[in-house]
């Protein structure tokens, strides 16, 4: 259908621009932000492609991808902040994230 094709093209274009920022981003946080946005757009792309193909069962994969994207972004943020994924050994705690 034309509607889903238009949505697919727009989402793929947006993912390309977002990956461009992940490539040129001056700090590591720009890259984390751009990869997070790319993952969120991937969720929408999987959902739209499921409707384009006539198989909405793809939504299960989209839901799983949203979960993995969230956990991955939090994990990379914490790793960049503490240089460790465990509990901070010394100094003030400052919370987990």
């Amino acid at each position, binding site marked *: 259908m034309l*509607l889903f094709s*238009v*949505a697919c093209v*727009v*989402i793929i*274009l*947006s993912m390309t*621009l*977002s990956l*461009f*920022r992940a490539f040129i981003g001056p*700090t*590591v*946080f*720009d890259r*984390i*932000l*751009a990869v*997070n*946005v790319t993952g*969120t*757009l991937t*969720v*929408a792309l999987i*959902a*739209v492609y499921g*409707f384009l193909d006539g198989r*909405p069962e793809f*939504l*299960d994969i*989209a*839901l799983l991808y*949203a*979960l993995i*994207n*969230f956990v991955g*972004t*939090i994990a990379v*943020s*914490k790793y*960049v*902040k503490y240089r460790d994924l465990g509990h901070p050994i010394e100094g003030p705690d*400052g*919370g987990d*994230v």
Partner: protein
Amino acid sequence: MLDFLDIMIGPLALADWLSWFFIISGSFFTVVGVIGIIRLPDVFSRMHGAGLVDTLGIMLILTGLMFQADEWIVVIKLFLILLFILFTSPSTTFALARAAIHGGVTPGPAVDEILDTPNNTPKKETDPSKT
């Protein structure tokens, strides 16, 4: 599904009109948010573009897909994805902002860099005379 969504208005049914409206609006906000990620000056303002993509863009696209579903379970799955993105997007932005501040990125210098452009140099020369 619901009966009133099958009413024909012009060439398309009501559900198709609603899908077109929501998906085109969502695509517009997605493109605007990604352009913001490309163009804005530092990390904290780029998070604004990321939030625009996460909330308005993706949510409007998923809402538009809901009108094309054949079964109720598809609508429930789309609603779950939408609810999950609604909760995780602010959490991700919060964690990333704390990590960025902890990592030494300050919001200030980018503003000074904007003021240092050649268009604003007369403004900078008037500042020492006042003080």
